[in-house]
């Protein structure tokens, strides 16, 4: 524990330094208490650091998360522990005694905390089961996070300009056969964003989004989608592609345009797969460690009477509970923080 930490003598352990975890830590500190934020990577920020542009306002996600991280670093009630994992936890009278490990040095230390916030976030599903799309088989096929990196490269003038880009939604979502039956919530919106960015960078390129539905349930979301279609001229085709095949250095996307009712084959240079959102594998282990339950997919289940609580003195926020956009992750982080503050206030 950092001896220079100030704040009232209650400490929350926040596991995960993405938007949900950062917001939780900041709000807990705002409430007067201490937070130890552990993050397995070597910098805090989570997924927003990897994103190029955002919906619905085309803002740079790194900016906002950057400001939050600055606040985090300046805050004397918060200790940030990077490249750190939680090895084990033992229950105490009023919380947990946790063992933290520094993955870079191998050093371990223990810490007494009176609350835990799980904020381990989400990742994208492994797509090796989708041989028909050829991820990691054909070079031009990327998942949506990999594509964010490509957008950044293109924006810097690196790499070859594409003549055509095809974005495929629902890869692994809404799939009872080899994926997950649920909808991953954010892909319709981020695909629209990605498509719009490509058109901004390369106005002459053909950009297609293959969709089954377009889910735009949020403030400004439908307007954003219409802007992408009507102002940026991205072509939306309703049909889940059947196959991606290489030919002559390009990629052929075979699908049906279901609104017309005709099979189609479009050539693209890059194919982007909006992969299903799944929890990180550590989430299940951590849930077990702290007595929380997970659903059949590994996402954290909430307590019947509180959406932010999952076990006694244990709360959660963000992608580890289900697919979430940055706005919601922040709100959930704040909600978890409110629960922690109330708990600490009640315990005096």
């Amino acid at each position: 524990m950092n001896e220079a930490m100030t704040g009232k003598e209650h400490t929350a352990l926040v596991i995960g330094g993405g938007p949900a975890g950062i917001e939780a830590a900041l709000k807990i500190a705002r409430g007067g208490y201490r937070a130890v934020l552990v993050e397995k990577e070597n910098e805090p920020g989570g997924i927003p650091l990897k994103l190029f542009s955002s919906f619905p306002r085309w803002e740079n996600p790194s900016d906002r998360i950057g400001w939050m991280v600055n606040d985090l670093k300046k805050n004397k009630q918060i200790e940030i522990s990077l490249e750190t994992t939680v090895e084990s936890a033992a229950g105490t009278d009023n919380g947990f005694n946790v063992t933290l490990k520094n993955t870079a040095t191998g050093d371990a230390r223990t810490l007494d905390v009176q609350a835990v916030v799980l904020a381990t976030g989400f990742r994208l599903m492994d797509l090796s089961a989708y041989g028909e799309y050829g991820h990691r088989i054909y070079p031009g096929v990327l998942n949506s996070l990999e594509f964010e990196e490509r957008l950044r490269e293109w924006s810097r003038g690196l790499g070859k300009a594409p003549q055509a880009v095809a974005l495929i939604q629902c890869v692994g979502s809404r799939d009872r056969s080899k994926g997950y039956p649920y909808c991953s919530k954010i892909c319709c919106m981020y695909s629209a964003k990605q498509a719009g960015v490509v058109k901004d960078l390369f106005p002459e390129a053909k950009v297609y989004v293959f969709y089954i539905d377009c889910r735009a349930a949020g403030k400004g979301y439908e307007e954003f989608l219409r802007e992408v279609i009507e102002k940026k001229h991205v072509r939306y085709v309703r049909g889940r592609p059947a196959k991606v095949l290489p030919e002559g250095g390009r990629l052929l996307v075979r699908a049906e345009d279901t609104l017309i009712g005709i099979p189609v084959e479009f050539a693209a240079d890059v194919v982007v797969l909006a992969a299903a959102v799944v929890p990180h594998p550590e989430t299940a282990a951590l849930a077990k460690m702290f007595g929380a339950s997970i659903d059949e997919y590994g996402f954290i289940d909430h307590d019947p009477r509180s959406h932010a609580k999952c076990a006694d003195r244990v709360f959660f926020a963000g992608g580890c509970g289900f697919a979430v956009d940055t706005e919601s992750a922040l709100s959930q982080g704040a909600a978890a923080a409110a629960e922690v503050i109330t708990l600490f206030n009640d315990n005096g």
Partner: protein
Amino acid sequence: MRERDADRVDNLDRLVDRYHLVENLESCLQCGKCTGVCPVANLSPSYNPRQVIRDILAGNKDRWLRSEEIWRCLWCANCYTLCPMDIPFPLLMMQLRYEALENSYGVKYFLPFRRFAMRALEDGLTFTPGGARGRERIMKLRGRIGLKPWPDISEKARQEYRELFEATGAKAWMDAIKEEEERPVTLTYLQGRITDAKKKGG
């Protein structure tokens, strides 16, 4: 002319699935992955598995019953292989063809197989050649490479095969389909909407 709710057949998806082989048609998202991969749809665009499912869920019987399209499915099952909901479309198609045949549609696409079936009842094997020359050729070829001239199948096997066709009513079902009663099929999906709506009123 608008189709009315009353024009549509209730629970058609359950009615056509007489053998309980396709119990999940309602999970179809109409995503089109089936038609996207279908080799027949690629060649005859009016053949569209997704549209057939849509018709059935909508309670429209007429369009597919009288269609030429349903006779084009190759049973390659690529639709099922890729379907995210595991809908076994070929098993649906098989049953739609029964419906059609029992209404005297598509009989010309059934007759060659009845002929093969009659020979199979004799031989216990399917696709045996009809003429003596064909049989001789096979027997010579097999003999040359050291196999028994004709595939080794016992009289007992052939007898039991025949009996099962009789006992299950399969032979009677095949015999009941009359060539003379055949009604013509057309590319109904190419022609556009054929609706079950009553003509009067409109």
